[in-house]
């Protein structure tokens, strides 16, 4: 007998559990990255009120202490409607009004960060016309059947809340033990400061005042060495996809020699998702190391910057934790071809620069060109379609050399030494080689 497919026994339960979100999802992200996700949300708020991306007078203040974590901004606030319908959903619901150039794409960042940090949180947000407060104890919420949070205070139809009061404050208390311990470490706070600064240098550059534990983070502009004879390469394109478009800019050039900073940097809507990358994801070691060699310290001057910008953040090749690129995405695979093309002449130049060191000549035009070039911000740098660099000084062609190594009985070597009147094994090898070559190979 065939069972009726409407029969309940045909139904398989695939509902998610709260535990999955509270305990599993948080494992996919590092603490510092989870905090940067919260900063991303503030920046999305800022983008909503300042689509021109001028962030003057806006701030994001982060406090990470062993007792609590707090992030507070004046970036426009979360409206009651957005909070009610979208902001607390797990995943990005359809219908959410999109923010051009958004950096908080995936709809998991805030919840994941809150769960990662501790078990109690309080969110207070005020917009031009509404205000709400939400308190939640995660341990209690976990045991409830419903997938809901509840407003503790709610005001709608407010009139003219002054701009400097429109913002959001999130405070997490009852921090998890390991989190509280990390927040006590000076090294962790320093690392977090560095990571926020790197991730959001463009936003800071555009006037956003970001601080961590009361200390302001300053932007350091992306720079490349430039002069009339030394010019970084720039590739620009607008790629149309799925009804939207992505602006792509790729710069490749050189900067100060600094191994930990060398490599490729990738930005999506101004947010760094990959920094100083020296792996195959950005082309190092491509084509069995023939197309591009693996990273080595003689390339410590290499810098490449790739920017993907789109009104539709869904078109950008970042992963959900924004800690890397989605290397399989069609757009990244395409742009990687361009990165390889721009990178190769820089690598060839750095190899020549390296071999110039060993030349016994006063003329070192490559070294000269590097030391006379000035570090210039990529925003206003003179570029060329391929990396432009001076030619190395002509030198007499040397025959290509090979190295021979082999073992023979010491007794026999000593005999030859005496006959040749030489003292080293090396000389024995060279003399016996020449002896054979003169007699058998010379034409």
């Amino acid at each position, binding site marked *: 007998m065939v069972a009726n497919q409407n029969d309940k026994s045909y139904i398989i339960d695939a509902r998610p559990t709260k535990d999955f979100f509270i305990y599993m999802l948080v494992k996919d992200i590092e603490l510092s990255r989870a905090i940067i996700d919260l900063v991303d949300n503030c920046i999305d708020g800022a983008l909503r009120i300042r689509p021109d991306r001028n962030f003057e007078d806006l701030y994001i203040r982060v406090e990470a202490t062993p007792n609590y974590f707090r992030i507070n901004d004046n970036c426009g606030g979360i409206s009651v409607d957005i909070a009610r319908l979208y902001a607390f959903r797990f995943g990005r619901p359809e219908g959410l009004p999109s923010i051009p150039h958004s950096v908080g794409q995936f709809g998991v960042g805030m919840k994941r960060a809150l769960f990662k940090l501790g078990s109690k949180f309080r969110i207070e947000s005020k917009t031009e016309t509404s205000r709400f407060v939400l308190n939640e104890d995660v341990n209690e919420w976990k045991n409830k059947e419903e997938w809901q949070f509840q407003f503790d205070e709610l005001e709608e139809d407010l009139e003219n809340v002054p701009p400097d009061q429109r913002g959001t404050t999130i405070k997490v208390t009852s921090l998890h033990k390991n989190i509280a311990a990390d927040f006590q470490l000076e090294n962790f706070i320093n690392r977090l400061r560095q990571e926020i600064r790197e991730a959001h240098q463009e936003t800071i550059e555009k006037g956003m005042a970001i601080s961590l534990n009361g200390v302001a983070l300053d932007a350091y502009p992306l720079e490349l060495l430039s002069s009339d004879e030394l010019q970084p390469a720039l590739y620009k394109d607008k790629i149309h996809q799925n009804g939207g478009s992505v602006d792509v800019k790729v710069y490749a050039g050189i900067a100060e020699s600094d191994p930990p900073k060398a490599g490729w940097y990738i930005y999506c809507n101004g947010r760094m998702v990959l920094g100083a990358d020296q792996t195959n994801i950005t082309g190092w070691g491509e084509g*069995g190391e*023939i*197309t591009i060699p693996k990273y080595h310290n003689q390339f410590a001057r290499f810098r490449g910057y790739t920017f993907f910008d789109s009104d539709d953040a869904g078109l950008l090749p970042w992963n959900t934790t924004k800690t890397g690129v989605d290397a399989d995405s069609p*757009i990244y*695979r395409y742009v990687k071809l361009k990165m390889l*093309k721009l990178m*190769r002449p820089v690598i060839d130049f750095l190899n020549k620069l390296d071999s110039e060191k060993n030349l016994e000549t006063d003329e070192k035009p490559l070294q000269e060109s590097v030391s006379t070039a000035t570090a210039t911000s990529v925003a206003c740098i003179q570029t060329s379609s391929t990396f432009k660099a001076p030619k190395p000084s002509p030198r007499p062609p040397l025959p290509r050399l090979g190295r021979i190594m082999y073992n023979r009985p010491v007794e026999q070597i000593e005999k030859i030494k005496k006959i040749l009147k030489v003292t080293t094994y090396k000389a024995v090898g060279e003399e016996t080689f020449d002896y054979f070559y003169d007699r058998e190979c010379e034409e």
Partner: protein
Amino acid sequence: MFCEVFRRLVEFGRVDTYRYIGFGSTFFSDFSLFHKSLKITNNVSIEREIGDKERFEFNLPYSCIELKFGESNEILPKLPWDDVRTIIWLDYDSPVSQSVLTDVAFVCANASGGSVLVVTVDAKPDHYDKRIQSLKERVGEQKVPRDLSDAKLGGWGTADASRRIISNEIEATLNSRNGVRGPGNKFEYKQLFNFHYADGHKMLTVGGILYDEGQEDLLAKCGFENLEFIKTGKEPYLIEVPSLTLKEIRHLDKRLPCCDPRDLDASWIPERDRVCYAKIYRYFPAFVDAEIG
């Protein structure tokens, strides 16, 4: 043969506006031919032996050839590629290797629609028990087709495998290039050449045209398939060089073209040489008698 194909590229744009990139060596015979027959004036010759710079410069046959010294892997990324249709003949004297594939991938990633890529590699089989191993060493294990064996790489097997490896590289690169292009706008490759050439030493020449899907009608108008030596798949066109005297060549020329070369009135010339000469006589190099002594 190449000239006959390249002339038909006119559907994509005037052939004299194409750029030709080759490895001229000191003879520059390809450059001379393409300049004379196709009026190509934008020529780039890549030479690896910088030590012989003066000699190369002395031997330049025309003023419209730019010499670039260095490895092709290094020079190609430095050339401009936007808005220039290119005919590039990567004429290596070595077998297929990662270095060859790097150049092939570069061209496929960057050449504009209507460009032609031709690759010549040494296709002589390696020592009979080291063929697979040496192929893996040259191109990397991932790029060696699984069904090959030392035995299958014998005869013309190395040429067949080299063609497959080169074609795979082209397809993989175009796949990456095409990810961001919509349907109807993809970049395609159509193989036109698959020459097996043996003049004492087996060589493979494989290549074809790179074009945008939107250019399919132009490609059709070129009518490449009407040329009998065009091979779009794995079946090769075998070029054998007949062994003939000048007097015999003149004798055969007078009777060509003809329907069946076996019927040519030249019974003293071995049939094999007659047949193979009749196939390629229009492309056979011309010689001049010289009085010596």
